[in-house]
């Protein structure tokens, strides 16, 4: 009963999960207005175009905020754990976990870069660490 929650890599976001396996952060980009989006949707929310491609984006961003869980909602996650909200350079936002930095050391707008964590033989999770050379 210690199985942690895992994503189903099959589905509309499959290119994202396969990308993480190959050390890339891939998101959808509208074929018409070029707006990035994630998770996957059929239509661009900016121009409603139905054409898109999956593209690799720069795997860096900033911490927008964070919180520390003290309550167990999922088996297999050890308390307390920290969730960060990251905004990638391309504008996409993600929830994730920080690597190599304690919650007390997190700051708004702290630059972070992707860490690809192979969690199971199929699943790689996208986590973030402070950008090297950017420690305050």
């Amino acid at each position: 009963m210690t199985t942690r929650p895992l994503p189903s890599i099959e589905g509309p976001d499959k290119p994202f999960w396969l990308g993480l396996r190959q050390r890339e952060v891939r998101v959808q980009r509208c074929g018409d207005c070029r707006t990035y989006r994630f998770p996957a949707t059929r239509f661009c929310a900016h121009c409603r175009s139905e054409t898109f491609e999956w593209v690799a984006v720069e795997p860096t961003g900033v911490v927008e905020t964070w919180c520390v869980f003290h309550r167990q909602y999922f088996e297999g996650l050890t308390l307390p754990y920290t969730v960060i909200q990251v905004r990638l350079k391309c504008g996409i936002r993600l929830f994730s976990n920080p690597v190599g930095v304690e919650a007390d050391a997190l700051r708004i707008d702290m630059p972070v870069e992707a860490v690809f964590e192979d969690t199971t033989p199929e699943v790689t999770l996208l986590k973030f660490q402070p950008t090297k050379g950017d420690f305050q």
Partner: protein
Amino acid sequence: MVDRASVAVVGVGHTRYGSFPEYDAYDLGVLALKQAIADAGLKFTDIDGLIVNRIPDYQRFCEIAGLDPAYVSITPGQGRFSGICIETAAALIRSGAAKTIALVYGNNGRSSGDRYGGAGDTYGSGGGGLWFPYGMTSPGAFHALMARRHMALYGTKSEHFGIVAKTFRDHAALNPAAVMRTPYTLADYQTSRYICEPLHLFDYCLINDGGVALVLTAAARARDLAQPPAYLRGYGMATALSDSTFPPDDFWRAPAKEAAADSFRMAGLVHDDISTLMIYDNFTPTVLFSLEGFGYCGVGESGPFVAEGHLAIGGRYPSNTSGGHLSESYMQGWALNVEAVQQVRGACGARQVENCHFAHYMAAAPVVTSIIYGREQS
């Protein structure tokens, strides 16, 4: 003088609040509706419009309650819908689509074991399943993220959240209907356990069973009924639904400002006219965001504002005089609207705000609603 308000709340009703495993959401709704109709001095046959909220099925509800309204609708069990239902009822009455509308809410969440977080979490846009692998879940965590950002940007302190929680608990102590009535100190707040840091247990609303009903009709008719009408002097609504999987950068200030401006304009009032505030308090930070968004204090100033004691009964803007969601009952905005009505009626007993002419209900969420109730029609 122009009659500004054409619709009024004429009847309110609610069940006891707590744990009632023998009643389901339909039963709780019927109990509340019986009270609200009796409160108004009306009969079930007077109801020609019905909107149910959180009750699973409108058809089943009408069968149980013996209702054949000319207009019927059903809305999902999200707190933002209390304000939406009230504003929709006002529009229906003004349009002539219905004369007397009942809004009925039933919530057996406590007894049915509702959980807000974990594998069944459906909060937000399409649910949060994508983020479960990182442990991200629950409306509480969403608000904890916003709280942390507010603290980092503006210097808001944990104790500011604590002051909100403690103040509403002090109010609940004056309310016999409240579930949680034992006052606590700020030190008790600070030592209460974290659920999702920076939020403590006391920053979270309750989960309990209960039902609430409101009856609304045209102002011209309201004057002949059993209770003093609570006129809908002004109301407004605005949304921030696109990109709403993530907390809004502005703490919902833009839609709150718009909804507030519309409601004040319609009412012909300014903030200084308002006697009491009913602020949607799913979590304490929402109260701070609302004070800024709806214009009761400046951007980033809500922490010091609450520290000055303005929200307490006897303060400038006594807020959530019932105890709110944090201490009275988790009725998703409905009970706060009942409290607004009772305050302008002058029926709140020990917790009555003196000379209460106007009560302002506000809810900050991806759908923002703002409703100003008045004792007089104009």
